[in-house]
Structure formats: C-alpha cells, structure tokens
C-alpha cells in the first residue's frame, strides 16, 4: 500500500494543527458557527441528529492492521465503541465531541490517515474495486491511479470550491465492483488494440434525487493523460456547473442540460488547450506508484487444501461460508475472504472496536497485513492462504464476523437513516435488520441466490437504492415512514436505475412486500441458476406489480 513520504506526513500534521487552532478559536468564541462550519466540514466533521459525526477517509478502501487498530482505539477512546463503514469505503464515528476531534485527527495522522475532503464541495475520497490487485479478471490494479488522483486532488486550490461535491471511482477489472457509472467521473481501466493501458471515461453518473447513469466520453484515454483529462472535466464543470440551485449543481445535471456531446466537446477543447507538460503523467511516475501496490510475495501453495475439504465435509456453515464469502485469489492456493458486517439482525456496516481489532489481528497473521473496506459495507482479507481458511473462519466466528451471506439477500447496504442522520426522512437500519431476520443466511437465503438489496433513508441515496436489484427508499408521508420499492437496478457494468414498482409501503408492510417480490421471482425463474436481476430483465416489472398490488393484501394503496 501507499506510504506517506515526508511531504505527506508534514502536510497532514499541519492540517491537524490548523484544525486544532480552528477548534480552539471556535470553543473560545473567536469563530462563530457560521465561520467555523466550512472548516469543520473540510475536516469531515458534521453535526448529525444526536451529535457530531466524524467521517474518516479510507483511501480506495485500503487499510493495514495498524490503521485498523487505530480505528478501533478511536472508537473505544473517543466514541461509543464502534464505527460505521460506509458506501464510500470510509468509516464514520457517530458520537465524537468537538473538543476531542483535533486529538482524533492527530491519532489518525500517526497512522497516515485523515478526514480531509470527506465533506464539502470538493473532490471526495477516490473509491475503487475492493478486490483490486487480487481479482482474476483484473486488467490492471486501479489503486495506483486512485492514489495519484488522491494526491493531485488533495486541497487542490482550483477545485476546493466546486458547485457541489465530486466523486471519482476507478475500476480495474472487467466486472465493475466500484459502481463507476454512478460517479461524477468513472474510470474503467482498459487496454487498447496495441495493448497499452488507459481508461474508458464516464461522466455525470450519480444517484440522489436525480439518478443518472454516467455517459461515456472517451473509449480510451491514455494513462499519461489521466490528470490532464480529469482536470479538463473539472474545469468545465467548475465554470458551467450550476451554483444557483443546490439540487441541480452536480455534474450529472450539466451533462443532462448541456448534452453529453456538447459537454464532451467542451472537455476536449479544454484538454487540447492545456499545457501538455503541466499535468503529464509519465510512465516512470506511474511505475513508482505501482510499486507501492505490488502483490506481496506469496509462497506458492497447492490450489486444493485437504484441511479445507475435510472441514467443508463436516461443517455445513463453514461450507456455505466458503461458497459465499470466499473468492479465489489470482495466486493459486490463496483466497480472498469477505468479512460480512451483516450478521443477521446487526446494523449493516457497523463494527465494534473488538471486531476491528480482531480483523486487524487476522490481517496481520494471515493476510499480509492488509484489509479492504468495500462499498457494500463489508471488510475484505485479500491474501489468505487456503490452508489457513479454517483458522481464519474460526477466529471470525468468535467475534460474530463469520456470517455466510456475502452477495446474498441479507448482505444489505443501508445508510444510517433516521436513526442517526439529520437529513433522513425514514429509518433504514431497522428495515435492513428485519429483512435479514426474515430471510436469514441459511438454506432459504442460499436458494434465493445472488440478490442485492440497497436501502436509503432519504432521496440523497447514500444507500445506493437506485442501483439495487431491489431498492428501498424511505420517505415520510403525513408523519409516517413509507418505503418506495424499485426493481431491476444494477451497480455493475450493466448499470441501471431501478424502476419504481408502485405506491410505497408502510414500515409494517415493507418486509412482507420484499417477501412477495422474492416469492414471485422464485416462482418465475427458469431455474436456480437464473439470478433475480436476470429474471427481472427477462420478464420485466409486470409480474412483480401484479403480485404486489393485485394479488396481495400487503400494499398500502
């Protein structure tokens, strides 16, 4: 992984001291709240429903064990013993005191972490595929590019006051695990006919109140033009993006209003007019970054482990863990383990300090000191020797982290919702908990197969509901929580916005409605090999509408 050089360390330390001074001046009354708010937001500190909330950046979801232990220590010492991993691959603390935040940021800087640009109208944490560097289908590791973008965009003077926040995601594999088409800029690593690396560039994706799938503006952008081209997009957006209406300020609206062709022309013109040497990204510099993310030296191993096979034969839960949470590593004899933060009935994405410590220990002992955070709110141990899998599983089980449900119906994305968030209109977590409790992680969940349920507690869509196979949006109607369901959304390379199935459901009835949808799917799928989203694409929304609103008494029309 990337390690700070002296410049980075001094830069982050200086920011901590700046913020310490700003907090001191706020507490003494020298700064008003109005004056202070932009400073605290630029350091990831929000005021939420119950308290302040600190959002800490986990660049492209990569952590080492020392960093994970520090996150646990902060949870214990300054918060309430837990943290919440988010769909932006970050972690949020829900209860920090303002007076403690400079110390928290100092603790973070001691392990090369910070909360810079996790809020505000700037370029946010760059996200990437959580299986970067280990996936079989990878064209090239996206993390070096993400790190280059992170360094370039950190406190970039021209792009610190954009019309609105700006999110960039990079995916390096054929399968999109980074939801790039729902980002302001999505970068897909590709090779051209000459075998050179570059990017397909998507612009103007986004969820929120106006969901849009990103539009492709370049089939192939050479590697060395990465920063120059991203800068050109941001310049056009910075100049032409709307500042008169917060709800129309994202680049997706500019793409929509200006048209993708006109936008693309403006970007190309800006790109052509640049000083070509100013932001050139030479191959040697890319190689320098690539070296930080080199695969650890993995001792060759047999691709089959007798120990694993014996355990699978006698332990059905272990067998189902292997089936759902374990993916082959590109190195033979190694696997990638998804640590589900979705124990049945637990709040999605929450991890206790003890759980974080346990994962840190496992990373150190079994995964070459590396952990990943996925946008699906799970953790990943990326380099586990197959032979070690039973030991890793047992230690995960001892801290309630061995739930065998990755990618299944109870592996639900949920934003914090009205239980924590000042913007939310309805609760998300209890709905996720009840759906997980209804379907569990046993034979029924396995028979349903891959199914992504995503829940947001308001139209800002932090829970990515628009791109869930089943999306649930919590709204408030006449003082009551109501849940609108969308079907057929997709967050991968076949990105799609889900279709609204019909009128919403009450909190009481929404789980029943999900069950009706699932039962309808089971009834119409060709066979067990046809996943929900494929069946939906084949049959459309009509059978689900009919089941929900014509045959069932469960709707609230």
């Amino acid at each position, binding site marked *: 992984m990337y390690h700070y050089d002296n410049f980075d360390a001094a830069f982050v330390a200086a920011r901590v001291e700046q913020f310490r001074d700003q907090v001191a001046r706020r507490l003494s009354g020298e700064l008003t709240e109005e004056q202070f708010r932009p400073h605290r937001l630029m350091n990831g500190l929000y005021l939420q429903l119950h308290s302040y909330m600190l959002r800490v950046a986990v660049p492209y979801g990569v952590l080492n064990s020392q960093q994970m232990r520090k996150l646990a220590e902060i949870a214990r010492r300054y918060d309430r013993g837990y943290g919440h991993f988010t769909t932006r691959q970050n972690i949020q603390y829900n209860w920090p005191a*303002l007076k403690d935040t400079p110390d928290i940021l100092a603790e973070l800087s001691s392990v090369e972490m910070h909360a810079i640009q996790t809020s505000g109208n700037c370029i946010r944490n760059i996200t990437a595929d959580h299986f970067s560097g280990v996936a079989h289908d990878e064209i090239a590791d996206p993390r070096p590019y993400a790190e280059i973008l992170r360094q370039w965009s950190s406190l970039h003077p021209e792009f610190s006051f954009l019309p609105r926040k700006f999110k960039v995601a990079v995916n390096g594999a054929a399968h999109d695990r980074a939801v790039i088409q729902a980002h302001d800029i999505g970068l897909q690593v590709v090779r051209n006919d000459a075998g050179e690396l570059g990017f397909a560039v998507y612009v103007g994706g986004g969820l929120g109140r106006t969901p849009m799938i990103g539009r492709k503006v370049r089939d192939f952008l050479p590697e060395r033009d990465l920063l120059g081209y991203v800068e050109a997009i941001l310049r056009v957006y910075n100049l032409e993006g709307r500042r008169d209406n917060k709800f129309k300020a994202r680049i997706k609206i500019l793409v929509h209003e200006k048209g993708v062709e006109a936008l693309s022309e403006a970007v190309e013109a800006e790109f052509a007019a640049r000083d070509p040497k100013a932001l050139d990204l030479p191959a040697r510099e890319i190689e320098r970054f690539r070296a930080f993310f080199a695969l650890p030296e993995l001792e060759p191993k047999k691709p089959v482990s007798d120990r694993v096979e014996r355990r699978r034969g006698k332990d059905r839960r272990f067998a189902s863990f292997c089936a759902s949470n374990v993916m082959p590593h590109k190195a033979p004899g190694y696997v990638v383990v998804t640590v589900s933060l979705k124990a049945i009935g637990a709040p999605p994405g929450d991890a206790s300090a003890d759980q974080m410590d346990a994962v840190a220990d496992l990373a150190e002992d079994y995964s070459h000191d590396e952990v990943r955070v996925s946008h699906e709110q799970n953790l990943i141990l990326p380099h586990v020797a197959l032979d070690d899998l039973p030991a890793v599983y047992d230690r995960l089980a001892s801290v309630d982290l061995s739930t065998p449900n990755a990618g299944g119906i109870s592996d639900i994305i949920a934003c914090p919702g009205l*239980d924590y968030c000042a913007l939310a209109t309805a609760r998300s977590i209890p709905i996720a908990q009840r759906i997980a409790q209804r379907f569990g992680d046993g034979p029924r969940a396995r028979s349903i197969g891959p199914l992504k349920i995503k829940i947001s507690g308001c139209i800002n869509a932090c829970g990515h509901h628009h791109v869930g196979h089943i999306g649930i949006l919590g709204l408030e109607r006449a003082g009551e929580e109501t849940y609108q369901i969308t079907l057929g959304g997709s967050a991968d390379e076949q990105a799609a916005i889900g279709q609204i199935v019909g009128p919403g459901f009450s909190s009481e009835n929404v789980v029943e409605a999900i069950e009706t949808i699932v039962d309808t799917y089971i009834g119409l799928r060709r066979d067990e090999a046809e996943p929900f989203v494929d069946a939906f694409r084949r049959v459309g929304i009509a059978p689900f509408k009919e089941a929900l609103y014509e045959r*069932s008494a469960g709707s609230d029309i």
Partner: protein
Amino acid sequence: MPDVITANRLTDGVVVFQTIDEAWSEDFNRAAVLADPPATAEALARAKRDETDNLVVDAYAVPVEERNGHFAPKALREAIRAAGPTNRRDLGKQAAGLAPRSGPKAATEADHVSL
C-alpha cells in the same frame, strides 16, 4: 401546538433542551413546554443568544404533544433525536434514562405479524 426548544451543545454535540430556568438539559423530560407561539418565539430568541454566547448550536423549536400523560415530540425524527437510535437501545439518552417517557417503539421483526 406546544413546543420545546432544542439545540446541540457546542463542545460535544450532545442534544440538549431548554429548561424552565432557562438553562439547558440533556433530559427531554426537563424541557420547558411552551404553550403558544409567542412563548416559543421568546424562548427561541433566548436560545439564539446562547448560540451567540457559544453554548449551543442549531437551536430550533420542536412541536410536542401529550401522550399517555407525558409530553413527547410529535415527529419521529425528533422522538429519535430525544431518545437515541432505535436500533441501539444501549446508546444515546435512552441508555441513561433520559428519553421522553413515551418514546418511539423499536421496530423489530418480532413486532410484526405476517399478513
């Protein structure tokens, strides 16, 4: 509809309520209940002065209603804010016995009957 005045304490962000002696309490049940709009306006003006004095931030009025003989926030958002997360009864004011005496009900699978 009667109101109470709420804000977040500057130093730690904790949700507080304006009391009858014009101080701030973490306990909703100690909040001064303001019977009419002029009383709310006056109390809010005092709260805004406390903002200027850097005691609290984001003060606003919360409509309350009488339920089972106790006042409680009318909106679910405010009920959760006055009690704590509904999925974690061990956190927030509810954990310290400071929740409104008729707080929001936890939504669990067990509470729901299949249709």
